[in-house]
């Protein structure tokens, strides 16, 4: 049963990644694209955790934690760049 559920949830997250990609391509403004990227990294964390569960190993946890931290920092850095035209003043 769990295998079927994994497949369904993989499909759900893959579909949402595709929707995010659509928003990333269509835009229309730069903050829209950053928002799409921000959502994409969060969905990637879910995908990695799910892959780790379906493989039965907890080793992917560290990768997910690193993606969470780097994704947050990069979102804030790009927004800061948009706001000021500079990252560190």
């Amino acid at each position, binding site marked *: 049963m*769990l295998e079927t559920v*994994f497949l369904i949830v993989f499909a*759900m*997250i893959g579909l949402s990644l595709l929707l995010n990609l659509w928003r990333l391509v269509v835009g229309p403004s730069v*903050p829209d694209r950053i*928002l799409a990227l921000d959502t994409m990294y969060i969905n990637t*964390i879910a995908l990695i955790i*799910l892959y780790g569960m379906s493989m039965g190993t907890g080793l992917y946890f560290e990768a997910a934690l690193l993606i969470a931290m780097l994704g947050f920092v990069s979102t804030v850095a790009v927004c800061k760049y*948009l706001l000021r035209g500079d990252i560190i003043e």
Partner: protein
Amino acid sequence: MYSEWLVSILLLIGGAFILIGSIGLIKMPDFFMRLHGPTKATTLGMAGVLIAAMVFFSNAQDGISVKELLITIFLLITAPISGYMLIKSAIHHKLKAKDGTKGLDNVEDD
């Protein structure tokens, strides 16, 4: 056996919320409304998936596994902050809000 059911239900709820967040990202007409989907629905969906992972690994290995809570807490703390940065840059770029948005004169230029 019960834990398998619990993991399945939590995973399905989490996946559904993640999907709803992305649907909101596609469907909404302006940036400020799009922001609501990813900051709320996706965060709750992640919490669902991560708690499911917690139950799954506690059951698969001996001893409980709680480290997935760390990512959940991290995402709960950072989601409002990235949302705040995004909406600030959107106001700075003077993005158009949907026609009929009330209280547009509350927004000051910076």
